[in-house]
């Protein structure tokens, strides 16, 4: 057991998408410093249940930092601001006794709040469906080195593929831009041989879909890169800008 913390929470409560929402304050007493942020919320929710109140709704799934479900802005920073960490992997030892913690949902027009801290992120799914895949079956596991991929390209593709689609980039961006997410998805497949046949179509379709979904554009502030739990590099945005330009010249339309 670690030390015990007594905290004050200021949590965004919103009944549904149409509700205007408000902040409500809760006490979080006897929080173990070894707990994760979501476990702390579980404790608070148990208390709320016992008091017959509505528990705080939040998304969570794997609780090991790979599913991208936990979406909350902690003290103004998506995922709380520890480098390369999702909210579920953020431990309470980073907070001090007596502190007030403000918790908000992602805020962006393209991510409508469904309830409390839960937002609708299907806009990301629709961008992915627009071209973030390889449409032909690539068969079973191929022989080693049957399709040579340079090590540098494989590394870069893997860096891009780390994106878990949590949406922190959108929440951190002053323009609510999804550039980092789309850039990771476009770059990932454009770097490997399997992604080549649909390379241009993919860049054009995903960018078009991104605009349709109502995300903003990139001002190159670097906020997205700083909050990304998978530390996706801003370089991928430059790569996508290049991909899109080349695709426009080569193919022109989706």
């Amino acid at each position: 057991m670690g030390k015990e913390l007594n905290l004050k929470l200021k949590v965004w409560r919103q009944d549904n998408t149409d509700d205007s929402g408000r902040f409500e304050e809760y006490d979080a007493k006897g929080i173990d410093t070894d707990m994760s942020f979501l476990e702390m919320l579980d404790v608070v929710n148990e208390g709320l249940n016992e008091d017959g109140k509505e528990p705080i709704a939040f998304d969570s799934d794997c609780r090991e930092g790979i599913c991208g479900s936990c979406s909350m802005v902690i003290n103004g920073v998506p995922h709380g601001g520890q480098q390369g960490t999702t909210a579920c992997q953020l431990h309470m030892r980073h907070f001090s006794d007596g502190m007030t913690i403000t918790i908000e949902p992602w805020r962006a027009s393209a991510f409508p709040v469904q309830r409390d801290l839960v937002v609708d992120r299907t806009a990301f799914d629709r961008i992915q469906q627009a071209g973030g895949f390889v449409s032909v079956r690539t068969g079973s596991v191929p022989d080693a080195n049957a399709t040579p991929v340079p090590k540098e390209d494989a590394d870069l593709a893997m860096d891009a593929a780390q994106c878990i689609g949590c949406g922190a980039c959108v929440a951190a961006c002053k323009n609510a831009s999804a550039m980092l997410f789309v850039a990771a998805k476009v770059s990932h497949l454009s770097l490997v041989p399997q992604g080549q046949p649909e390379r241009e179509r993919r860049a054009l379709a995903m960018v078009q879909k991104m605009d349709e979904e109502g995300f903003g554009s990139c001002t190159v502030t670097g906020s997205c890169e700083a909050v990304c739990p998978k530390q996706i590099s801003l370089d991928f945005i430059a790569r996508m800008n290049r991909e899109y330009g080349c695709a426009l010249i080569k193919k022109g339309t989706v």
Partner: protein
Amino acid sequence: MNLIKGIFNTSLGRKYIMAITGAGLFGFIIAHLLGNLLVFAGPAALNEYAKKLHDLGPLLWVARLGLLAMAGLHIWSALKLTTENREAAGKRHEVKVDPVDRHRRDDIVARFAARTMIFSGLIIAAFAFYHLAHYTWKVPQINGISGEFKGDFETYYVHEVDGDNNQTAFVTPLPQGEGAEGENASDVYRMVVNGFNVSWVVGFYVVAIGLLCVHLSHGLSAMFQSLGMKNKNYGKWIDCGAKAVAILIFLGYISIPVAVLAGFVK
């Protein structure tokens, strides 16, 4: 046709427009600065240079219309992107950014120059308009100089040839009231000296150039990113280079009114 549509109708395309027109306007800023610095080479050099520019005739108009088109496109896409971004952002987070790792705050919060591009840009545009009215259209009411002849830049002309009575080419002013647009060379040097002897004119100028410096410190590096020509290997150099160039441009432009006010150029 698809290429044009793909550029004008998507956010990425409009960022290309921002970057390319921005680069063009930056080219003008450099050329204009180099021309202006001729003021330190004396009246003959500056006035002769101005005359040569004016004698370009149709080419000058091509350059002017090109600049106008670039400025127009730059402002159009800026306004369009800003409106879209505001809509996309909607209601923002209410609390101040306070990450658990405090030192990361500067990485997470967008820098001042990046946050204020639209404002610095629009103020620079407004200043450019004033600057044109001041020195190109020579509107006497806005230059802050009193006196029938001294206050009217339309009357500032110089002799183009050496003559009798100790006349020096491009230095000796024509008697006031003589000389006409298109026939005689303008006395740009005297316009600069008299124009910058008005303190509030210099005040405006310093503010506008300061904002230009802020605007460029972000814009010069962001344009490489928008055109897909930046990465971590040399990105730092681009960022530092952008800031250094912005400061050099600030110092270059500011040196002229400072020299005039200090009496170094008279």
